[in-house]
């Protein structure tokens, strides 16, 4: 189940024919549109597991309940075949359905508002060429009171600023392209930006990391400790292209993002994204001093690490490039929130396999071998050894994670 921070649009599937106006011979427009759907990772939500491309019906987990993604194929009755281009652009940029109704911001219109009209039309043009799929989806599966759409008007007033992307003329073209992609089509902040109580982005803390879907999507600002500070532009681009670089491996939702979206992006766009991310400043943080190695949890964790982890991640945490992630340094180890570290120790993880990095190595599960205190100790150790510094992980954290993860597929 693909989870996003918030809701998905409801696209009522019936109506009068009012089709888009694109000339289906416009090869350039259509192929540009196809690439833009890659940039926007549309398939990640709108293609169900084992389903037809863009046929919708994929469950989207939100903090308020589960929704289903809409059918965005050109099917007249159940897709968007009956829509005008203007309907489509309104949905993308304003969060309004075909009849003006509010749609849930699980559909990232708060990001897509930055998508230019030209790009929106190109996406529409491409979607008009994919095979029509008859699949009627009732997207709104939310429980009361979240099922009431009217509240979205107020939500938009509070949290949705309209307006197209404004380039910063003082910055390079690369940076502007990156900003357009990260804050627009790429909607990186949907996962990586913290949310407030009502599920809206905490824009003060853009891209500083957020817990969702049983993972912690790490800080991807240029923060030296918790973010991408130790990665070069090339490291970031390589990671997005292949799912692996000399430090890290993508698994979980990021594996899917790499697989469906960023591995198919152009090298220039990946470098642009990286250039922009490297410009987003980190923020000062607590816990900058490591937990002392004499602490009981650190001593126990050091023993467990030497016995159970070093054969892959190496005794000094350096790992093996492309195969075993680096643990000494980097965002995924030192996030304030230890959710992902605990998760991969307990459940194991398969990293993404791509054409550029086809190995797809996996981390085995240790849930059977280590009790809560042992997982907590080794997690605390890797987060505070070799110059790392991050808050302690307690046995209670692990116990809670076990309980939570047991309910996940």
């Amino acid at each position, binding site marked *: 189940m693909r989870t996003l921070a918030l809701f998905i649009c409801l696209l009522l599937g019936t109506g009068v024919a009012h089709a888009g106006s694109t000339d289906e011979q416009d090869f350039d427009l259509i192929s540009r549109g196809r690439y833009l759907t890659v940039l926007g990772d549309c398939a990640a939500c709108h293609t169900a*597991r084992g389903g037809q491309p863009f046929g919708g019906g994929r469950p989207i987990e939100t903090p308020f309940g589960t929704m289903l993604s809409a059918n965005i194929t050109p099917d007249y009755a159940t897709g968007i075949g009956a829509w005008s281009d203007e309907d489509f652009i309104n949905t993308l940029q304003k969060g309004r359905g075909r009849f003006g109704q509010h749609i849930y911001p699980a559909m990232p219109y708060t990001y897509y508002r930055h998508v230019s009209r030209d790009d929106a039309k190109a996406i529409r043009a491409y979607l008009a060429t994919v095979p029509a799929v008859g699949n009627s989806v009732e997207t709104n599966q939310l429980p009361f009171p979240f099922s009431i759409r009217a509240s979205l008007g107020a939500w938009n007033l509070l949290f949705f600023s309209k307006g197209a992307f404004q380039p910063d003329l003082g910055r390079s073209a690369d940076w502007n392209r990156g900003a357009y992609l990260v804050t627009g089509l790429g909607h990186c902040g949907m996962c990586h930006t913290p949310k407030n109580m009502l599920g809206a982005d905490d824009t003060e803390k853009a891209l500083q990391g957020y817990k969702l879907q049983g993972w912690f999507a790490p800080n991807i600002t240029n923060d030296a400790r918790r973010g991408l500070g130790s990665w070069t532009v090339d490291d970031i681009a390589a990671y997005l292209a292949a799912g692996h670089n000399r430090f890290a491996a993508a698994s979980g939702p990021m594996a899917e993002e790499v697989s469906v979206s960023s591995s198919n992006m152009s090298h220039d766009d990946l470098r642009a994204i990286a250039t922009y991310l490297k410009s987003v400043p980190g923020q000062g943080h607590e816990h900058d001093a490591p937990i002392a190695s004499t602490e*009981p*949890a650190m*001593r*126990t964790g050091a*023993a*467990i690490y*030497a*016995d*159970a982890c*070093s*054969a892959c991640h190496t*005794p000094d945490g350096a790992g093996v490039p492309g195969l075993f992630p680096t643990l000494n340094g980097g965002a995924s180890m030192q996030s304030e929130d230890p959710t992902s570290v605990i998760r991969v120790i*307990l*459940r*194991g993880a*398969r990293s993404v*396999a791509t054409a550029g990095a086809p190995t*797809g190595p*996996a981390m*085995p*599960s240790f*849930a*059977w*071998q*280590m*009790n809560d*205190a*042992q997982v907590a*100790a080794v997690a605390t150790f890797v987060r505070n050894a070799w110059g790392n510094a991050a808050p302690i992980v307690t046995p209670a954290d692990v116990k809670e994670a*076990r309980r939570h*993860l047991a309910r*996940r597929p």
Partner: protein
Amino acid sequence: MGRLGRRKLLAGTAVSLIFGTGCWLDGTPARAAIVQGSLPWQPYAGDPPAGIGPGQWHFFSAEEGAMVEALVDRLIPPDADTPGGKDAGCAVFIDRQLAGPYGRSSRSYMRPPFRDGTESQGPQSPLTPADRYRMSLAALDAHCQAAFGRGLPALSPDAQDKLIHGLENNSLPMQGPSARAFFELLLKDTRYGFFADPIYGGNRGMAAWRMIGFPGARYDYRDWIDRHNERYPLPPLGIAGRPAWSDRE
């Protein structure tokens, strides 16, 4: 220790079930795991061994268990530094093994006919290890009762040693499998119990590994391949960890 890991069959995105498209005589579709698209994976995957705790015998009767404890403690006697076979858990180990696939010969080819051959052709008996222990322990007990008027556990260590010598040189009259055959079986299983990972009930406290200097289930000696003729410093590690994993003082 939670036990979440038993192999969960054929899940994950890359493994699906094939359902045939034709008619099925018995109405059930045939199935096969198909691997295609990506490497199969799923959370908690793996098939780790189940830990064995102390407790009642699974296979032996109380009397059989006492006999085997006495025997393994003479085969591997206790000394000042290292426990004997009994305290190392060898009898528990053998008991649990006999209660499992080994005891039933479930992985061996057990189709008839069973015919005697040459030694080079290997064992050809329909008897499983569980059968052999049951028969030989009964025969040994019968011998002890007849010769000494009491069971083997009640005999002195010297008398027990004499009996084992009788098994070893095949001089002890035994019903069923030969004395020597039982000696070989028991000695082999006792050594397995002494040296196998403690997760199987023997080698308690990794005593046998400590005795010889084997560091156990360690997986990384990169720091030691170049250090020649030096004693390896770290204590042994078992599949279930080691004391330092829990020492939080």
